[in-house]
């Protein structure tokens, strides 16, 4: 049996108490919600926190509420299953329901939370391994070692952003609330990530992600497409979040294409919007946006499949995602 390392376990009843408990705990302490990312990592000795601050008793972090502006506010510890089946999510944010459906397995969706998915540790073939395996390659930069085996001459870690909800939420322009010892702040989901496999979050150490805010569903649509080996379990080797806001006549007013699973942070494709804006998602525009995405995405040897195939998949997957966006009326 693979055993967890020992830890102290705090179970505060409120978000404020949780932040307090975390700040009072030793420096390596961590929040835990569903545990589906953290506990495997702990068993593999990626993280060995002396203390865990569990959020399971914090009722205010759970649940989905309509916001005054017509948007939706989702508590960070709402399970992926709850998000996936929620009537408002299904009706107004079907792409988010779909992204949650595509995460791992139905059982993991019962356990994993939306907040946990947003904060998912970056992944890598050389990192997501047991301690002895990692020792066999003298470890890697992300944990216990000095080299990034994905790019041995690189000074940085190239572990890959692998959460399905992230490219979609970035594309949608969603925001999150972060509660820290000094108070609460709201940032865009896109501002939550840094392009580094190790320091991949722009969140302060003790900050607690409390809520995810979805913009009101007025005039825009979004879709998510995922590439992976199997229909369950697997993390994305490519995720495409696509979003467009339409004028009443169907003309694209603005658009975003965001790639997941190719870099340490979600990759918002800079050149994707331009060919799409002002048109009606015709084939030429879609292909131009896909071409821009193909140029932007630079997968490395950090997931399943070969680098070259993953790179090649960007074009057809973006084409299909934008086709879904056109057809999703």
């Amino acid at each position, binding site marked *: 049996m693979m055993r967890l390392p020992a830890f102290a376990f705090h179970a505060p009843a409120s978000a404020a108490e949780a932040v307090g408990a975390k700040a009072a705990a030793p420096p390596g302490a961590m929040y835990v919600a569903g545990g589906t990312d953290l506990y495997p990592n702990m068993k593999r000795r990626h993280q060995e926190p002396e203390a865990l601050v569990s959020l399971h008793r914090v009722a205010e972090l759970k649940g989905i509420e309509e916001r005054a502006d017509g948007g939706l506010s989702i508590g960070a510890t709402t399970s992926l299953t709850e998000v996936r089946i929620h009537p408002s999510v299904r009706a107004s944010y079907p792409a988010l329901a779909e992204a949650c459906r595509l995460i791992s397995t139905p059982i993991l969706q019962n356990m994993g939370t939306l907040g946990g998915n947003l904060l998912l540790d970056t992944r890598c073939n050389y990192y997501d391994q*047991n301690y002895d395996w990692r020792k066999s390659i003298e470890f890697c930069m992300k944990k216990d070692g000095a080299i990034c085996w994905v790019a041995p001459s690189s000074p940085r870690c190239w572990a890959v952003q692998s959460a399905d909800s992230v490219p979609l939420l970035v594309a949608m322009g969603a925001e999150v609330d972060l509660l820290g010892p000094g108070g609460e702040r709201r940032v865009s989901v896109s501002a939550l990530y840094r392009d580094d496999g190790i320091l991949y979050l722009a969140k302060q150490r003790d900050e607690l992600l409390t809520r995810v805010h979805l913009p009101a569903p007025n005039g825009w649509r979004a879709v998510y497409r995922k590439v992976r080996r199997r229909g369950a379990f697997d993390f994305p080797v490519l995720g495409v979040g696509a979003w467009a806001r339409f004028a009443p006549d169907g003309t694209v007013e603005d658009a975003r294409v965001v790639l997941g699973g190719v870099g340490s942070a979600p990759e918002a494709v800079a050149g994707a919007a331009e060919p799409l804006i002002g048109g009606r998602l015709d084939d030429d525009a879609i292909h131009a946006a896909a071409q821009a995405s193909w140029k932007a995405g630079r997968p490395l040897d950090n997931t399943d499949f070969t680098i*070259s195939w993953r790179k090649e998949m960007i074009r057809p997957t973006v084409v299909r995602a934008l086709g879904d966006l056109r057809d999703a009326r």
Partner: protein
Amino acid sequence: MAKPDSPSPGGSATTQGLRVVGRSLPKVDAVAKVTGRTRFADDLFLPRMLHCKLLRATTPHAEIRSIDVRAAAEMPGVAAILVGSDLPIPYGILPVSQDEHTLCLDKVRFIGDPVAAVAAIDEETAERACRAIVVEYAELDPVASIEDALDADDPRIHLYGDGHNVHKAVAMEFGDVDAALAEADLVLEDTFFYEGNTHLPMEQHAALADWRPDGKLTLWSSTQTPHYVHRALARVLELPASRIRVIATPNGGGFGGKSDPFNHEIAVAALSRRTGRPVKICLTREEVFYCHRGRHPVLMWVKTGFRRDGSMTGMHFRSFLDGGAYGSYGVASTYYTGALQTVTYPVPAYRFEGLRAFTNKPPCGPKRGHGTPQPRFALEVQIDKAAERLGLDPARMRLDHLVPPHSVTANYIRVGSMGLGACIEKVVAASGWDARRGQLPPGRGIGLACGSYLSGAGLPIYWNAMPHSGVQLKLDRSGGVTVFCGSTDIGQGSDSILAYIVAEVLGVDPFEIDVVTADTSLTPVDLGSYSSRVTLMTGNAALQAAERARELIVGALAEKWKIPAVRIALADGWALDVEDPERSLSFAEAVVVAEAKHGTIGTVGSYTPPPSPGRYKGAGVGPSPAYSYSAAVVEVTVDAETGETKVEEVWIAHDIGRAINPVVAIGQVEGSVYMGLGEALMEEMTYRGNRNVVHRHPSLLEYKSPTTHEMCPVHTFLVEDPDPNGPFGAKEVGQGPLLPIPPAVVNAIHDAVGVRIDEVPVTPQKVLSALKRKAKGEEAREGPKGTPAFAWPEPVRVPPPEAGGDGRAVDDPRHIGAGGVRGSVPGGSVPGGVPA
């Protein structure tokens, strides 16, 4: 139970009037399995039990300079630590490859090779102690591939074998292959590659040892071969086998992966002896990958001559096996890559050359189909290519050229019942083959392939004249029947088969029978659950024991009732006079009569396969009492933009001889199809040759085992062509149905998008690159480019039966054959050829 309506007397081994055999019944252990009552090895807990962890090598190839266990030994809770020198006697499943040590003695040969074993009060303490052991290594260059192994500049992994890092090299020729190829209308020369993959049983291997102060040892283990574990324990621990009891717990899946004696089994036994306390180990999933013994990666080169009508003139087949770090079953695996090419379609002249290389990876061994899915893939894809070139329908071409039943092949395989023609006809009709092949929309296609497999190896691993399987039967005056047999239920239903067969013969309810299996102290030897031998061999042994018991009962009743014995029937829990059914006794009353006459009622049965006609060196691998046959049609869709293949539907027909229990047989067929699809599309056991030959992904997440989403509907047809050697005519079903799946997938992809993928797994990137080549007008193929150069030994030349051969090699009936360097072989060689 009600009295039977129309019992038939005598002749219980015929197929007339069967009341149990042929019915789809639950397995006798089904209730235990659906309620969580089945006790797997890790479910066992004994008082004072210690827990074991193994320290494993983190370098692929190195000499051990020193091991310092002092700090670990002083940790509170640590009871004992063993290192290699504590258990210096080597072992291995084959007598010719006794090349493993419980803990590495002087060098480590792959990442995961165990170097020390700790017993402690709990797993966490044992694990901490392992971390405190300091091993100093002198690193050697790792041998990462077959090419590396053939490079004499690399260090040797073992100092025995048929060459530098060549474990085994074999060559044999049946008839004049060059002449046969010269007279062909079409000669195809292809190279294929079948990537290695692993069994991945859901249960991680576990073992519990209990040494008693009276000098006796009991080992419970999730093993498919308690008999061979028994032998290995006696050898390594230097104990009389009579003091050792091995109990195989129900296996949570095996597929061949629990068929070797394993280091962890011996380690816990030795630790139990050292500490005087029970010691248990349960491997982590990563460690299960390091046990491996799975499918060999095999590179193949095939040159076959065809006539215009699709018949073959001759075949020259070469295989290169990447064997990993130890021998395991590898010598047999090597021969198996060449043995069964001849049993489906006549190959009048046949030359086989095969080699197995040592590399610094976990050892390969027997996985479902042992050594035969790889050459079957090559053969069935090449036939598809030949049919295309000859303008023949691939199904028709096969149907027109089938090995006749009850015949002997060029390499002296004796084929018995042969239902492949019926299998092909079933799947062709059901899949709509004639109307759909070549006529589906672009991106959609169907492909056909066939296969055949053994119903048990004809020779035992340790060559001897004793039975391969034994059954004891005990009947008591309460009417209770207990079957004792050494066989191991790995989920395939072998315990149930024993009950059904005994129930059939004695006319009792199979669920009233107690089955005691896989316990070397309580049950007679059965060699183990491998080579699809169990139903045929234990079934025949059970049949014999049951018929002997039946004779005792019927004889006693005949005397009591003063009627001829042939008038007495046993059925549905009754014994009765068929001419005067009012004259009857319950089964229990009948046993009382028999016991009063004969004393305690106990009978035995045993089974030894018939001798094989082959008399040449190497003839020991391939012979079987009976061969199963399968044909499959697979329908796929291929996404030409991504290269992704989805299997939509499978039609499969399997000639099982006779289904003792059809629903259990169908389960084996479906499971084989599933595993074949995994091997065809995604499963691979691969390593990073440039990163210390580390396993790429020893986890259930990254080793891609198909989920519910990858499994398609399967239409199963059981073809029953009874074989005279099988109990009630039964042949195997556990492995054969896997064989046609990978080639049928590849043939279907060709039908869908016109590209040839000459290797598995068929990943999307392979399909996409082949499609790109096709678009550029280049060869629309993805696959290996060639094979390494190797100086093959002179072949053993054996004239085939049609040329008047008698099964012996020319020149010398005991011709040694294999060339190259023949180092000192621990354990010695085996008379009569190489064991299966």
